């Protein structure tokens, strides 16, 4: 036990992560992505992989590490879509996953948001629509926030969750969000 405690003390308390990203580009449709206004509490997120290579999953997992500490933002990943406010979808939509994705979407109570994470979920990425792949997420279920990247870095994903939780000040939808992002980062 003393070794364990010594290692904890040696690691220390990591500083809060400052926002370093200036190139974050988020695309969103109506309604505005901020959800905390409507539900008045922290976000519960259900992740659904519809055909990802596992790269985006690794970055979602990394969000939980001591550096990004997603839980400190008030975001937690939940096991059931019924407990979720946000559906976080990764990968191009493989045809065998289209129905499970719809089922999961319908199980999320309203109000809800869908976040398409990564180039594949946003626009099919290196893959193409074919006999086995439907394409991006948006033809299957409506997408509120798209986070490009292959995979998007944990910092960008963290920023996106902050956007989902930011109080809606003025303007909503894509313009408001973009304006806020520019003001914040640029």
């Amino acid at each position, binding site marked *: 036990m003393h070794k364990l405690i010594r290692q904890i003390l040696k690691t220390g308390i990591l500083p809060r992560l400052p926002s370093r990203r200036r190139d974050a580009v988020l695309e969103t449709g109506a309604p505005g992505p901020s959800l905390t206004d409507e539900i008045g509490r922290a976000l519960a997120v259900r992740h659904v992989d519809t055909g990802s*290579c*596992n790269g985006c999953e690794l970055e979602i997992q990394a969000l939980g590490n001591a550096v990004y500490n997603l839980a400190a933002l008030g975001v937690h990943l939940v096991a059931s879509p019924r407990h979720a406010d946000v559906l976080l979808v990764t990968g191009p939509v493989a045809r065998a*996953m289209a129905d499970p994705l719809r089922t999961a979407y319908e199980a999320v109570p309203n109000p809800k948001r869908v976040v398409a994470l990564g180039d594949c979920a946003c626009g099919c*990425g290196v893959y193409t629509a074919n*006999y086995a792949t439907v394409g991006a997420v948006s033809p299957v279920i409506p997408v509120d926030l798209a986070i490009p990247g292959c995979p998007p*870095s944990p910092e960008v994903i963290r920023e996106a969750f902050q956007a989902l939780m930011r109080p809606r000040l003025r303007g909503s939808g894509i313009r408001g969000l973009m304006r806020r992002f520019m003001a914040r980062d640029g």
Partner: protein
Amino acid sequence: MTDHDPRSAPAWSRLPGPLPVNHAWVDARLWREIAARCHAEDGRLGSLWGSDERPTGSGFVVHAILVSQEGWHWISLKAGDTNPRFPTLSDLFPEAARQERALFDLLGIGSGAPDTRPWLRHEVWGPADFPLRRDRADAPPAARGADPYPFVPVRGEGVHEIAVGPIHAGTIEPGHFRFSVMGDEILRLEARLGYTHKGVAKRFEAMPLATGARLAGRVCGDSTAAYAGAYAMAVEAVSGCAPPPRALWLRALLFERERVANHLGDLGALCQDGGLAFGLTQFGLLKERWLETHRRLFGHRYLMDVIVPGGVACDLDATALGLLESEGTAVLETTRRLEDIVDDHAGLQERFLGAGRLDRAQARALGAVGLAARASGIACDLRALWPSPPYDALGTRVSTRTGGDVAARVGVRFDEIRESLRLIQAILAQLPPGPVCAPCDRAEGLLGLGAVEGWRGRILVAITRARTSGDHHVHIHDPSWQNWPLLERAAPGDLVPDFPLINKSFNLAYSGLDL
């Protein structure tokens, strides 16, 4: 290489590239004979797949790669133009069974094996629609119907089934597990995968070999360096391209760094599943810093697009080498300290010891490869058995454990982190000077094979009909083809709540297998 009359003895021809691969066209009788001989010599099936070569007059072709002490043998069998068939190898090599089912789903080449359930199809396309046939119209399939999949049932009083997936509870890839349980005890586990099938082979057909590297690095996100490396090796083999020595050494550096990253991540998750959240925090932090070094020095946290046919798209200066060296020393020191804590932690060891046990005989019978095989006492590792440069100069020490349980797989992971860190320091010290890439844009050969010992095991990439652009076929083989049945064998007898731990100790691929 020319087509040869296969009725007599096989005419082996050595394929170019660092692997000792001999190829031959065979008839059905030789197909079985060569496979049976390989089996008798304790060899294994590397991979089994098919291609539609009707445009070049060879009809449907089935390929198998057999790996034995004798070396690597790639046999190709013409299965006919209409109603193509070939003799199954699944009676010799159980790992062939699902590969043969996938082959039928994609190309309609029947093996005659008793299990004819679809593997990849999932009722997404029709039973008489074979998407990899080159004359198939590129139209989306008709609306899918119901998808009843007959899992093998367990009968008896008190037995019930737990169906899990395709969407799992955690942040992991989709697949379905069907547990037959009695109380909390697992009696049988059957996996059904293929949910993330994206038509990768079809996608490769539409891409020139050079651009295909981008796709190869994106079919299994935790093994991008190993996949891109195996792909580059195969393209170089058909292009008569010899990458410069510095490129090969840098690739080995990337393979070993990828291995360390995954082992660190999995050890953290194993501690978490075993009830020691401290481990997740500590290993998570080590992995995070390791990945940030990737981003700084190689431009990508998971090393995508760094390995390209002909060499690598990165180089390291003296500062970078120094940074990598000191990082390696620091990670070794911390990992040793953490290993000590894990070894001493009674609660964790109680969960690890004996869980998900797979003995050597079972592992051998199922054709186990990679990390899981080594934890069951089978010393198979490409880096040591068939070392391609620079591994021939480095000398890899293969770690094996005999326990075959979660503890053994944890032990092998710790050993392999240490060994990879040793290899990394050796590579940094001996990195040869010179260019890092050679031109690799003219496919001259027909067949090429690449193989890399990824962190899970042996990843293969085979290219056929490379010279005729548009007719080429790229086949990717993930070691999870061999190792998913291991998990299904290791879980019975354990309790359902131990399954996540057992599963994580293997951590097998979905996307890399489903393709």
